């Protein structure tokens, strides 16, 4: 059993237990590294981290915020790799979004003149 002389020293009842204990009366979290559970605090960046989501190939999304200048698509249009899909004006330049997969466009969500943020859904494949 460990005795504490200061407030911020860990108080443990059982040396081998994984029971929730606290430092500075702030409850500790669990972090698992290589199958071992450590009791520790998280920091803000770790708590707010974006969890990974695999890219959905059916979605065409904007990679930068900007204004839609020209749309080369329409619902039901067949596209192949290398085709121009949309022109997006951003950062004082015209950015063209090219086709990455062969397929047919199922739905189009923007028109010329729309202002879109980053990661906005522009169109979907069938």
């Amino acid at each position: 059993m460990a005795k504490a002389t200061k407030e911020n020293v860990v108080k443990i009842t059982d040396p081998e237990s994984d029971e929730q204990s606290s430092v500075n009366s702030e409850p500790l979290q669990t972090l698992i590294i290589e199958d071992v559970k450590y009791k520790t605090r998280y920091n803000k960046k770790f708590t707010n981290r974006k969890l990974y989501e695999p890219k959905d190939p059916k979605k065409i999304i904007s990679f930068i915020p900007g204004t839609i200048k020209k749309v080369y698509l329409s619902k039901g249009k067949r596209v192949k790799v290398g085709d121009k899909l949309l022109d997006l004006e951003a950062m004082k330049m015209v950015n063209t979004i090219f086709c990455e997969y062969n397929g047919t466009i199922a739905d189009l969500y923007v028109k010329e003149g729309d202002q879109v943020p980053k990661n906005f859904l522009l169109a979907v494949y069938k």
Partner: protein
Amino acid sequence: MSLSSKSTDLKRRMQEALRGGGDKAIEKQKATGKMTARERIIALLDAKSFHEYDLFVEHAGRDFDMSDKYLPGDGVITGTGTINNYPVCIFAQDFTVAGGSLGYMHAKKITKIMDHAMKLKVPLIGINDSGGARIQEGVNSLAGYGEIFYRNTQASGVIPQISVILGPCAGGAVYSPALTDFVFVVDKISKMFITGPEVIKTVLGEEISMEELGGARVQAEVTGNVHFFAESEMECFEQIKKLFSFIPWNNMKKADPFPRKPPRVRQYNIEKIFPTNPRQPYDVKDLIRGIIDDSDFLEVQSQFAENIVIGFGRMNGYTIGFVANQPLVLAGVLDVDSSDKAARFIRYCDAFNIPLVTLVDLPGYLPGVDQEHAGVIRHGAKVLYAYSEATVPKITVITRKAYGGGYIAMCSSHLRADFVFAWPTAEIAVMGPEGAANIIFRNEIKDAENPDEMRKLKIKEYKEKFANPFVAAAYGYVDAVINPEETRDMVIHALQISADKKVDVPFKKHGIPPF
């Protein structure tokens, strides 16, 4: 004209220049809670030690009706003085004069004092409080910034360069502090960003306030651009004076020694700090305070990447740089931010002849897709590079876990640490017993009648055989296994022996660290 009338004329000119932007502008500055530039210099430097130069420099702008305007000192105050009797060169931008904007002569004043600091080999302090480039002077303002950045780089590693952000510092201007060694900010007063909120709103449509984008707190906690955070300007100046008591004033000197004092063992007793359960955390700062002189620890970047602790302390009266894993936050793992934080500090200490003491207690690197995609590989490599390259005395103390790549990165003997000590609680292994047992004894566990029991047995076996410092000591990777209470004496002795350490390095212009 007699001498006395000339003196009177001089007095008049000086008073006009010393008024800065005038009473109205000064009132406005005070209303936002900021001190004036001269007040700041007087508060920071030793009493009566400041001597100002280039008071009568006038601006060079000729377009846009600039010829009619009188800008005292062109918006910046430069001079020399002392801090705790250390000579320093200092410049402070005056926000009351044309918003502290940088013009051709303003930059010339700054580069002049920077050249002085380089020649005289004394530290340079820059108090930034400026609206940015003076648009009326066009490309001359950019030229001014460029000249400053070049000198920041040339001076880097030769003289200590301190930046104090006591106002806005935006756009190109903010690169000068970024190139300096230590950046100080004050809550609600400092603002640092490359593109401001208005531009971000227009171009990207994202709305954010100046404080949330690049205020002092954000810079201290999130971006890691700054090293010291204060609640008030006076507190900031106290921090600067404290830092100066630790660092040498150029790279050919060592910091002045202080009288040796024992640590405050009643407050920071090493044996009481340590939990028995190796998976429970403790505050490594208490451990550091338990071994340094007078328990006087100056932590650097205390609010950024808290899973590693860096800072200055003294042992046997001499300044030492400390790098320690903090098990209290994220179990003390190394990740992108902590690697950056540690690597730059190690290089600073190496550049200025400050010995390094490393306290090791980490389970490895932080797993996660966000870490991998952020490039933890090349960031983690920075720590390895920095430790290997450093030729100052390097002492390592392994207190608990040191698994895998983390063991190597935290100044192991392979990266040419001079002395590596380990406590009896140290576990130097490829990985923790649980992880290792799962891999090595996978078949035995699978084929056993009771897999859980077999797992527990194998973990116990591995723990007894490998989770200790003696396997590493058997190969000489650990120089001595010591008791915790012997740490201070062993480290001080090692530092005394290494005082005149000299290593030969192969000739190269410079290496290529993974920036």
